[in-house]
């Protein structure tokens, strides 16, 4: 409290000496943070560095063990969710908080009640339309939120926060699921919001976004501030990456894929013949042993359907999916696992993990016989595997919800890839992970390819897909609009992605009557 009042006036948020522990685990200790109005402040750090806990604390969702807080220069004694909201602090969390059965506009009006009575559908829709127009974040209305793509849900989350007209906007990895163009647009929105006098805090792993879109940056590592309130212009991406991980990092996030000399001559292990399912329309492709096939495209163009079909969860409406000549056992997950099809889903918490159950129990999911060993035996049996896959936790008995995102994903890998698979289906496997963990995850998937697996990699980040894949197909409006070999022609890929997505993505499966964007097969 030695600083002058006028200095603090421009400060939207000031945190001094904040600490937070969860039992024996320190989330962060003695953290200082200053966020000013009119600026975009990036919060960088690896998973588990304490960024999410820090912004949750600012939004009043977590209580700090110690530390002092000011909002708009005013000291805040007890920061809870209500006082934070009343002071205009809004948080967009990394994991969605939408009501899945309600439409976008219904979710919107539920969040900010203006009176005891909810507005009519018409008013609600108008409000959503107005927000969509104002901020340029497109969200479909009139269908349940659960039917929206992950990207759309994320955009709705952001719109909902903006709807509250927050003075301080905290975004926890808002761009993790967005495509490059969408992320750029979002940063533009953030810039506009900052120019209007708001303070924006963005947690992101994309260094390029920090460099291009942010004014200031605070870097957290292991719960401590390693770079405090620095001006972004004075730092390079490489320098920030070093500060974040505390070690030298190469430029390329992933190693180049090892190209098999006779790759093209090899017969396809995985064959997809004329598969239609939902948005997907007659998609055909093949993947050879040791090959990584990238699937690129804007979210909502059939990736989710392709994922469900390849993971043998959904039976395709028509067409066949065969692995080494045998049809995939759709709807029989145990047989899918028996056929050594590894599945690393796009939403690990929804599809791959059971959060309240222990690590050991989660490793067992889909595996193991009818009779289970004693709990202690089960837990001891997986300890070695957890160590091998570098899953950092309080032990095999800990609940999965205690894991950070990166460690949770490594747990999925420890289950799916420990035995060399024949086929790997992976969707956004590095979503929400910091560069260090993302690289580990990608390398482990590529290891599986080196060991002879056919790999299908569906990704939201084009750069990443291009870095890991031998071959890339582009999905647009449920069809393959292009197949590309290395070296990749980015502009052609962009054209294939964008050519069809210039119009709005198809909302219904029967929307292909005017699909003029070429066919996949």
């Amino acid at each position, binding site marked *: 409290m030695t600083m002058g009042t006028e200095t603090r006036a421009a400060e939207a948020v000031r945190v001094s000496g904040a600490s937070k522990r969860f039992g024996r685990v320190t989330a962060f200790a003695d953290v200082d943070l200053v966020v000013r109005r009119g600026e975009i402040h990036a919060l960088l750090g690896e998973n588990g560095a304490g960024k999410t806990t820090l912004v949750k604390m600012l*939004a009043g969702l977590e209580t700090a063990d110690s530390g002092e807080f000011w909002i708009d220069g005013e000291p805040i004694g007890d920061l809870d969710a209500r006082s934070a909201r009343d002071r205009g602090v*809004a*948080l967009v969390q990394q994991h969605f908080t939408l009501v899945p059965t309600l439409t976008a506009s219904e979710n919107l009006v539920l*969040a900010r009640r203006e009176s005891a009575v909810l507005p009519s559908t018409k008013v609600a829709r108008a409000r959503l339309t107005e927000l969509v127009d104002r901020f340029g974040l497109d969200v479909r209305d009139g269908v349940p939120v659960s039917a929206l793509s992950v990207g759309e849900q994320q955009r709705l989350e952001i719109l909902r926060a903006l709807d509250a007209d927050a003075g301080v906007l905290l975004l926890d990895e808002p761009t993790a699921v967005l495509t490059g163009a969408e992320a750029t647009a979002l940063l533009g929105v953030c810039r506009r919001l900052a120019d209007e006098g708001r303070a924006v805090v963005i947690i992101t792993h994309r260094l390029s976004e920090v460099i291009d879109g942010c004014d200031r940056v605070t870097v957290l590592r292991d719960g401590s501030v390693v770079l405090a309130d620095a001006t972004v212009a004075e730092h390079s991406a490489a320098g920030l990456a070093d500060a974040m991980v505390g070690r030298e990092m190469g430029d390329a996030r992933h190693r180049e894929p090892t190209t098999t000399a006779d790759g093209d001559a090899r017969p396809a292990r995985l064959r997809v013949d004329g598969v239609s399912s939902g948005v997907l329309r007659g998609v055909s492709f093949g993947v050879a042993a040791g090959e990584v096939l990238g699937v690129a495209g804007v979210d909502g163009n059939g990736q989710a359907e392709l994922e469900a079909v390849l993971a043998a969860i959904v039976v395709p409406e028509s067409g066949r999916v065969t692995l080494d000549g045998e049809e995939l056992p759709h709807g029989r997950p145990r047989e899918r696992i028996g056929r050594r099809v590894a599945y690393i889903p796009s939403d690990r918490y*929804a599809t791959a993990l059971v*959060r309240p*159950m222990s690590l050991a*129990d989660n490793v067992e999911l889909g595996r193991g016989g009818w*009779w*289970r060993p004693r709990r202690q035996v089960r837990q001891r049996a997986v300890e070695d595997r957890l160590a091998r896959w570098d899953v950092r936790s309080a032990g095999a008995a800990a609940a999965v919800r205690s894991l950070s995102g990166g460690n949770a994903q490594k747990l999925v890998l420890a289950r799916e890839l420990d035995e060399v698979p024949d086929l790997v289906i992976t969707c956004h496997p590095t979503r929400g992970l910091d560069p260090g963990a993302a690289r580990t995850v990608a390398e482990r998937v590529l290891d599986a390819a080196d060991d002879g697996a056919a790999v299908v990699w569906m990704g939201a980040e084009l750069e990443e897909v291009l870095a890991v894949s031998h071959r890339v197909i582009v999905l647009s409006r449920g069809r393959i609009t292009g197949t590309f070999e290395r070296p990749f022609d980015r502009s052609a890929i962009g054209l294939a992605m964008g050519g069809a997505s210039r119009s709005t993505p198809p909302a219904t499966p029967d929307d292909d009557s005017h699909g003029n964007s070429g066919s996949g097969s």
Partner: protein
Amino acid sequence: MTTAAVELDPREPELIETGGSHRARHVAVLVGVPVIAVVGALAIGAVLIAQEGENPFAVYADVFRGVFTENRGLRNTATSATPLLLMGLGLAIAYRARLFTIGAEGQYVLGAVMATAFATAHGVRDLPGVVLIPSCIVIAGLTGMVWSGISAELSNRFNTSVVISSLLLTYIATAVMQWLIRVGIKDPDGFVPQSRVIGNAGLPTVPLLNTHLGFVIAVALVPIAAVMMSRTRFGYRVDVIGHNPIALRANEVATGKMLFAVLGIVGFLSGLAGYIQVAGVTTRINAQFSLGYGFTAIIVALLGRLHPVGVLVAALGISGLNIGFDAAERSHDVPSSLVAVVQALLIIFVVIGDAVANRFLRDDD
């Protein structure tokens, strides 16, 4: 604005034991909350007894005496605990799977009716007990299974709520029973609508214990259920479907099959409980056969923390309260229906206790 953010991670009573460092505290909450709830419920019960002008301590002493020292007190406790225990075991498994069926009562009634119909049928009723008893067990169990399975089929096919369909099926089952004791299985010599006496299918009394065989069967099922939950793939799947049905569907088995399996177990045990009640206690079915055991069993499952051993303790406890208050009514001026108040308070206190424990003893992990 992300409202309702505080409720984002609702920590429900953690009924899954993962072991590890928090185990002691976990067990303390599991056991401690019901114990405190019993004390709290009895304390409020004492106030109500005082309102009636009686001395609560004297009444409670008679409740205790009614169970432990009075002639046949323990025997009656064990006997009336039997249907509660059988149905409580099934319901505990279903609730672990988050399948909130409340239809045990209907399965219980129909199981009893079908077993009685079989055992009193012409030509069958003269068969020896060694043949009749196992046959009745199978018939009653399968009847309950089919009745419960209707809820599963309706849920799988039309996505109807298991809670609602199971409850409504109970009314149908009761109506079927009322009809059958007037026409199909009616005792021709009876003046009131009732079935014939179950006769050779009646359960023998176990020497030493002085209870009917059904109690022994029910208690023997406790370790079986406990092992099934903790050591078999089925028990694992029950826990997985309870917490993440999507993960179950993607990795283990279709959720629809689990629905049939879990509700089938509930139905089997409930139907069995119905037969055992006829064969061990009432000897025949009359209009008053249904006493709501199937609903009390819901309380037993919850008080028993959805664990088979806990269900055993809860079944005996609830049954003891009933027997004890019945005895106390004979010597004091308190209505025995007070026991219903105490039982309801128990549930409320357990629910509150879990919420409080979760708030102040949040797992750090």
